[in-house]
């Protein structure tokens, strides 16, 4: 039978563990969200089969687009939203200039047409998290400033001429 001190000690440990867990949401969220067999296109070239691995790492979500031996990784963070691409040659993250999504084709593109992918999972999540902002919308574009933060968001006809 547990004596009172042992019980207190264990309750204390549990409370400490719970506190640590709550204080580290980044760790709690880590892990693979999904792997998606789909199609990608690089720099406007013909679409090719690819696998998207969406992984939570700390406060970011990484999207690895695996096309054969080539991997293009996009990192997305929130509050504020920033997107960056992994540059393997310099081993650094480079802020994106822009990103665009069209719901009706389930497509999202990064930096113009540098990398486009059919990813309904991503768009389903966006749609459900921001129902009011996305209701009735099909095309969304965001332009990032030099500091990586969003300078401009446009929708549908409001995007005419944006990014050109």
């Amino acid at each position, binding site marked *: 039978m547990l004596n009172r001190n042992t019980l207190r000690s264990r309750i204390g440990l549990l409370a400490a563990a719970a506190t640590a867990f709550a204080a580290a949401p980044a760790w709690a969220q880590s892990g693979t*969200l*999904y*792997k*998606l*067999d*789909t*199609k990608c*296109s690089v720099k406007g070239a013909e*679409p090719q089969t690819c696998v998207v691995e*969406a992984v*939570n790492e700390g406060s970011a*979500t990484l999207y690895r687009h695996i096309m054969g031996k080539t991997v293009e990784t996009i990192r*997305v*963070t*929130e*509050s*504020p*939203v920033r997107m960056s691409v992994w540059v393997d040659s310099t081993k650094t993250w480079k802020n994106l200039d822009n990103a*665009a999504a069209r*719901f*009706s*084709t*389930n*497509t*999202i593109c990064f930096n113009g*047409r540098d990398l*486009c992918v*059919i*990813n*309904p*999972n991503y*768009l*389903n*999540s*966006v*749609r*459900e*998290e*921001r129902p*009011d*902002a*996305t*209701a*009735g*919308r*099909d*095309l969304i*574009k*965001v332009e990032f400033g030099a500091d990586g933060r*969003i*300078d*401009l*968001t*446009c*929708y*549908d*006809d*409001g*995007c005419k001429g*944006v990014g050109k």
Partner: protein
Amino acid sequence: MNPALRTPLAGLGLALAGVIALPSSAARAFDSSRLEAQSAELIARKGGGGGGVRKAGGHSGFSNAGGGLNRGSAKPTGGWSNKAKVGGGGAGGGPSLNRPAAAAARPAAGTGNRMASRDKPATRDHGRDGSRDLGREGSQDFNRDGNRSLSRDVNRDVNRNINRDVNRNWNRNVDINRVNLYPGWARPGWGVARPWNYGWYGGWATPTWGWWGARAAVWGVATLATAAIINDAVDDAVDDHNSYIVVPNTNYQLLYGTVQPSGSNSVSFVVQANGNDYQLYANCNRGTINGQEPSNAEEAELLNAACQVAFGSV
């Protein structure tokens, strides 16, 4: 107490108070930084809705001025797909930012003279449109059958007791306020966005259901609404941000966002009939609703529509 000792303790108390207060102040700081970013964004948004400056507690108009795109890591209703259905996208079934031809043919959301379905004088617009489409695309017989069944349904609906629209076997009412009518997949591109990658459904023009031939003859119905008609109805509803489609040739309103597959043959959904909301289950392979064969053509159309939304091609 020694004053020299009291001061550090007081400082500790202040520090603790600061720690306790930190979450709310940090949240305010976070909100203000986000607001700053969002304010700049809103200026560029089409129809973003100006807010004006108001004091805290009012509606600034900026509260929903999000960045448009986000992290995309929150699991949507229906979960994650592991295989994207391609083909609904751009050229060659690949990714594309170009508007699909079918979508481009429709007026943009919020434009044109289309009324919200709920305000339509009769809930048969989709059915009428469908018959016209059938006539253009299909054979002469197809057109004739469509019109015949349509007018019969209209007359019957007008004269009969309205309660007859609801099968006695439909006994599970749902609280619509507790139902997610707009899951992430119920949007433009919904056919590809459906997160499930499985399912079976077949036999549109001549259903393979064992009961179909004899019942169809009795009902005087040769065909059910085509996939194209139902897909168009969903597309229109999505564009108009309506939560339901009117099932062709019926008084039923199918809440398409509630459609969820169960296994590869079955589907659950909510339908509105006579002002009530019913949770139903259909087996698309056997052709049953709540375990029973449809008792009239309207129920067959409902079965057909729900199965198309769940498993049909787009």
